[in-house]
């Protein structure tokens, strides 16, 4: 095994791993500060922050020969016998000088800068900079320049790491951003008439190590130290990007991608990034309503009564059909199927409406936005397959209801956008009992006997299986608004289970009952598990 020596400590790396000094040092628990280097982008070694001392150890004699000058850690490959030293006076002095040079022109407006609190310039200056400032505080404010519909640039805050420029060239492949002028006058800019408006543009804000690029959606909304962070999964499409939901007092303020080499690497698309606003839409359904007369007159039913009265209504209605929404988590879907079968042993289970918009959109950096705008079709199909001999979809259900095959239906939806028109909804009006669980009013909720509110993606807890059969578990980031029971809680109570809804307990139960989903048994890693790989291994 190749061995790299980091600050006197031997670190073994894989025989075929191609790592630079920053990555190897990280394994030794040594953080080499860096601005311009990012694992997802090409190496330019321009910021000079990661300068370190390197050398080689002769394998035969063990004699160490050091290089006379400092080298950038990001550009120096670590191989067998590489010696990395990060804590000498030379290295420390170099870092302090880089910090000082960056701060000559950096405005001291941390107090109104949105990046303050998560700014690398702040952090590194605190750790590696010097306490004394030898230049004037100038300028105090940053010039602002619009670069696109979602991103704004604070010109003077930029430290010219060019991460954003490389991102638009290498990952989104759109090349909107560029560097203008030279030397100390360098600035990031766009060509007139070619704004930064690609579907991955929000990532440049995450990449920016300082507060130069700001997200207009988040600008001035919160100081970052007020935000609480919950690992989550994006529900925008079937790619199932790993994200972090940042929230405060049950209000979501922004979503950020979470590194997951199997799914989204370091990125997420703007559709997903800004796709949380529906959670706080005042038009959301916020109470359980039951129809008392035919002209859409509804009584609000307490949730404690919903569990019993809903069961009564449906037991007396006749043949039951259930649409299991691909917005539900695996656990919720399984409990819904169990609830339906406990009401009517012959209940027909269908996979709910799968919204599709356009076609898959791929980017040169390997990122794909899926056309299927729901996070869990594969998971819901796997659950329905446990109960039904064959998978039937939403169109089959609409056809069967139109043909009068069922007397009652329970439609789960929870889609953030309008999804059904009057014509499709019309046949459901003839049912004796119709339960609709959705985020917003729709032609279907108007016909419903029971109109139940659904939970949004950040309010759910459970597991979603993405298009590549990768199952990822997550906890609820925020509480559902007052008056809303998330689906999991309702089904948990309708099954007569005690205590709070516990997705892990349901997941264990699913894993025990199914070989296809056996991988869900234990605690899932943060990057999720591939259900197919596990099946191959167990067969």
């Amino acid at each position, binding site marked *: 095994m190749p061995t790299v020596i980091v600050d006197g400590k031997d670190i073994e790396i894989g025989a075929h791993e191609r790592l630079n000094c920053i990555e190897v040092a990280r394994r030794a628990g040594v953080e080499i500060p860096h601005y311009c280097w990012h694992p997802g982008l090409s190496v330019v070694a321009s910021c000079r922050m990661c300068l370190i001392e390197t050398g080689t150890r002769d394998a035969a004699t063990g004699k160490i020969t050091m290089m006379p000058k400092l080298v950038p850690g990001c550009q120096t490959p670590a191989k067998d016998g590489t010696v990395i030293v990060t804590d000498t006076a030379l290295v420390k002095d170099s870092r302090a000088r880089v910090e000082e040079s960056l701060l000559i022109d950096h405005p001291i*407006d941390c*107090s*109104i800068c949105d990046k303050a609190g998560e700014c690398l310039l702040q952090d590194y200056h605190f750790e590696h900079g010097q306490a004394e400032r030898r230049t004037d505080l100038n300028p105090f*404010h*940053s010039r*602002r320049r619009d670069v696109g519909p979602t991103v704004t640039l604070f010109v003077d805050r930029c430290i010219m790491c060019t991460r954003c420029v490389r991102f638009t060239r290498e990952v989104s492949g759109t090349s909107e951003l560029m560097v203008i002028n030279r030397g100390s006058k360098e600035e990031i800019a766009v060509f007139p008439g070619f704004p930064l408006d690609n579907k991955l543009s929000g990532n440049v804000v995450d990449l920016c190590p300082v507060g130069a690029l700001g997200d207009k959606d988040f*600008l*001035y*909304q919160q*100081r970052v*130290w*007020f935000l609480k962070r919950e690992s989550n999964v994006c529900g925008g499409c079937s790619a199932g990007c790993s994200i972090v939901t940042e929230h405060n007092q049950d209000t979501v303020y922004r979503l950020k991608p979470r590194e997951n080499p199997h799914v989204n690497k370091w990125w997420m698309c703007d559709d997903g990034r800004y796709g949380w606003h529906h959670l706080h839409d005042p038009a959301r359904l916020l109470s359980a309503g039951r129809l008392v007369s035919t002209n859409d007159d509804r009584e609000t039913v307490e949730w404690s009564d919903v569990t019993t009265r809903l069961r009564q209504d449906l037991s007396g209605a006749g043949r039951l059909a259930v649409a299991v929404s691909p917005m539900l988590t695996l656990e919720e879907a399984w409990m819904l199927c169990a609830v339906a079968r406990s009401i009517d042993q012959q209940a027909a289970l269908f996979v709910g409406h799968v919204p599709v918009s356009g076609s898959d959109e791929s980017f040169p950096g390997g990122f794909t936005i899926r056309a299927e705008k729901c996070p869990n079709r594969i998971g819901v199909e796997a659950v329905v397959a446990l109960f039904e001999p064959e998978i039937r979809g939403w169109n089959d259900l609409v056809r069967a209801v139109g043909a009068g095959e069922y007397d009652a239906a329970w439609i789960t939806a929870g889609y953030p956008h309008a999804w059904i028109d009057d014509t499709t909804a019309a046949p459901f009006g003839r049912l004796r009992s119709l339960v609709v669980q959705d985020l917003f009013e729709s032609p279907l909720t108007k016909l419903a006997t029971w109109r139940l509110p659904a939970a949004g993606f950040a309010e759910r807890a459970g597991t979603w299986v993405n298009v590549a059969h990768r199952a990822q578990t997550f906890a609820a980031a925020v509480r559902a608004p007052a008056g809303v029971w998330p689906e999991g809680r309702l089904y948990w109570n309708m099954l007569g289970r005690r205590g709070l809804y516990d997705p892990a307990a349901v997941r264990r139960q699913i894993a025990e009952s199914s070989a296809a989903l056996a991988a869900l048994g234990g605690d899932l890693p943060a990057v999720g598990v591939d259900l197919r790989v596990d099946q191959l291994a167990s067969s």
Partner: protein
Amino acid sequence: MKPTDPAITWLEEKPLGLTERLYLPLFLQGLSTTARHMVSRKVTVNYPEVRPTVGNPLIYRGVHRLNRDDAGRVKCVACFLCATACPAHCIDIVATESPWPDREKYPESFSIDELRCIFCGMCEEACPVDAIELTSLLDLTGKSREEMIFDKEKLLSVYDMTKDAEPMKSKTLAAGGMATFGPAPGLAAGAGGHH
């Protein structure tokens, strides 16, 4: 700290001496304290008929105010540092882009729950632009809880009301002048050196 902690020194109560046991000398001693207070200068006043005088308004911590800049605009830049420093979580700010070219950010709304506030002065300490200050207004009353949540307009009106009697503390300190405020000469040098 546990009772067995070595840092604790345990003392025994001394047995009563002759004077203690005679009772009368101690009785007279106590009575003389009472008599002394009856004739000494009073430190209390008949509030509200008589208003107490505030010794040094620069360090007094009364009702908050939001200062205005030279153009009459709110000085606050909505950096949330006061809200961050506040131990009582009584400051609520909604920030937005400022309508002025020379400023990036300003508070769309700024409210302080005066009932929740503990008047510690941390907000004043944290403010990087000397926008929030505690005045020497000490009688703070209201008829409802809602009334005691001071919004931006009210806090600015406190400034308008008090600016003549109490100029902005930063300006007073910059001028090195505690002269207008009488005592506490040591403070001017100490606080002035900070700037």
